[in-house]
């Protein structure tokens, strides 16, 4: 008998944090303009020592103003999607649940686009209207997961196949709405179809957006983490969890809202990036087991690692042109999805 201890959890997270650091350094090095490891190391050291004035300006511009913000965005988006996927998998008792597959990302996109359309008509202070897009995305995500949840029910029980089909159909319907909105209503200042349908991380944002994303991520993930042991029991079904002392309606509400919020955050700044919420929790479960006290933080770190890595590939494989990062995650994720589906069926 080897129950989870804080020490073990800390070590696991520490190892992943080190890997994330290495991946971040690699991502800083590679790109359209090559940077030597030496120069990178020197600049990182100077940055850490607060000697930012000594960093050469052209490197500094590329590293700190272009690459680092994009890497930070990848970290937050990857972690958010991964935590959202883990949560949906536990709540819906479906190992194939993921914000993208269930259509929640598409719902968030519709919400975000509608918010972008509405913003010019509402005379709001800039600080408030900046939050309108993520709030729209959150509402879109929450509405979609509610709809898919009811579509996936059969005789009062969640049916795995019906749920996934419901998600796929919902996603294609919402994607049609996205195309309609983008081709008719928007005035050209919103981002293109590739962004909303495939997802990419190339948009640059102001510092305040990063603060909002970071705080939002920690609050929502923290809320989900308080239910970690409840989620463990929910894997055996809602009735059994209730008999073991889980307040099922409360847990369901907290986790659905928080996971929809995380999806909304990610989608409002990066569009619908596919399969991160599916692949990463699976890999982490294989390595660390299915205890959510471990799974949630390791999935968050793993999601960050995966998306920083995928985005580095997206920036470099066909350089100087860029791929959408969603294309990279889909190429890896779709075959894995098929594999998991076939394994689950047998």
């Amino acid at each position, binding site marked *: 008998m080897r129950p989870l201890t804080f020490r073990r959890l800390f070590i696991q997270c520490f190892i992943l944090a080190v890997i994330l650091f290495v991946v971040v350094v690699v991502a800083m090095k590679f790109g359209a303009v090559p940077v030597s490891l030496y120069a990178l190391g020197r600049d990182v050291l100077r940055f850490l020592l607060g000697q930012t004035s000594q960093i050469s300006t052209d490197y500094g511009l590329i590293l700190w103003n272009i690459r680092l913000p994009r890497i930070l965005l990848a970290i937050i988006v990857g972690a958010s999607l991964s935590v959202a996927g883990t949560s949906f998998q536990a709540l819906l008792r479906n190992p194939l649940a993921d914000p993208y597959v269930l259509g929640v990302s598409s719902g968030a996109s519709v919400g975000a686009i509608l918010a972008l359309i509405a913003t010019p008509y509402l005379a709001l202070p800039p600080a408030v209207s900046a939050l309108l897009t993520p709030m729209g995305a959150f509402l879109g995500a929450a509405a979609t997961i509610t709809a898919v949840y009811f579509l996936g029910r059969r005789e009062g029980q969640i049916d795995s196949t019906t749920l996934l089909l419901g998600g796929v159909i919902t996603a294609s319907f919402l994607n049609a709405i996205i195309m309609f909105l983008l081709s008719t209503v928007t005035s050209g200042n919103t981002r293109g179809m590739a962004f909303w349908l495939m997802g990419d991380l190339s948009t640059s944002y102001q510092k305040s957006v990063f603060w909002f994303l970071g705080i939002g991520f920690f609050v929502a993930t923290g809320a989900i983490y308080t239910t970690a042991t409840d989620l463990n029991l929910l894997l*055996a079904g809602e009735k059994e969890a209730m008999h073991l002392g889980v307040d099922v309606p409360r847990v369901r509400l907290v986790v659905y809202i928080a996971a929809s919020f995380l999806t909304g955050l990610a989608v409002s700044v990066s569009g619908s990036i596919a399969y991160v919420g599916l692949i990463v929790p699976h890999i982490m479960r294989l390595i660390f087991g*299915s205890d959510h006290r471990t799974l949630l933080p390791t999935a968050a770190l793993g999601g960050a690692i995966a998306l920083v890595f995928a985005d580095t590939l997206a920036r470099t494989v066909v350089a100087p042109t860029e791929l959408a990062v969603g294309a990279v995650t889909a190429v890896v994720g779709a075959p894995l999805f098929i594999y998991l589906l076939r394994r689950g069926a047998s």
Partner: protein
Amino acid sequence: MSSSALARNAGDPARSSSDARLSVEQVSYAYSANPSQAPLFTLEATSFQAKPGEIVAILGPNASGKSTLLKLISGALAPLSGRILLDGFVTHSLTPRTRAQRIAVVQQESRLLFPARAWEFVLQGRHAHSRTLRFESEDDVIIAKNALAQVGAADLSDRWMDQISGGEKQRVILARALAQQPLLLLLDEPTLHLDIAAQVDLLHSLRRLAAENRYTVVVVTHELNLAAEYADQVVLMQRGRCLRVGPPAAIYQRELLEQVFQTPLTVALGSSGRPHVTVVSER
């Protein structure tokens, strides 16, 4: 109070409740798919009481309301009328957490989404006793180990739940219920997927555990002979009605059982002094 003096019929108000742990008082329930329609299923007022260390078998054919009665006792359903008291508390109004500290429910089967080892599964029984975000304490581990040992499954501790036999699984599920350290242990057809040896083994364990730990055990079954052999009290159900409550010797009468189970049978006294039922083939 001797067992022969137990109430013979449902709802005998004369019976003292001072020594009872579980008290089911005139409980009824109606289920309908649509509130405007007539109910599809009703459970008529049912009463019985049980003391610590006692095993109560809820016996009856399919669709007699056995499982509904068990759900009402577990607090998962709210009764339409009447009340169910466990040590003076109404089970339905307890929070899930306090309820799980007092009542353990063993269901027919437990399906896991992702593989877990037996010890992880048993530790889940400690959930209601630990604070949010707390890691399992040494006490929890000791309680879980004891629970596994009590059902003779200590050697299964490190096995995967999806790689053990039905009988072994049932014992681990029972161990998880014991890890909850309940006052009341509820079992819904625990012998359904077990072979005869495992059935006897399970009920034997229940008998011993009820005596050792002073649990009150309520078990739903349609196994007439297992109920006769191991129960102190039998609650006989038919089509949503509680026909009789009493010790097996008082309930196991040929005409009554034939009428309830709709099949010719004979009742004889077994070697243990408890009634034994044999179904008679008409051909």
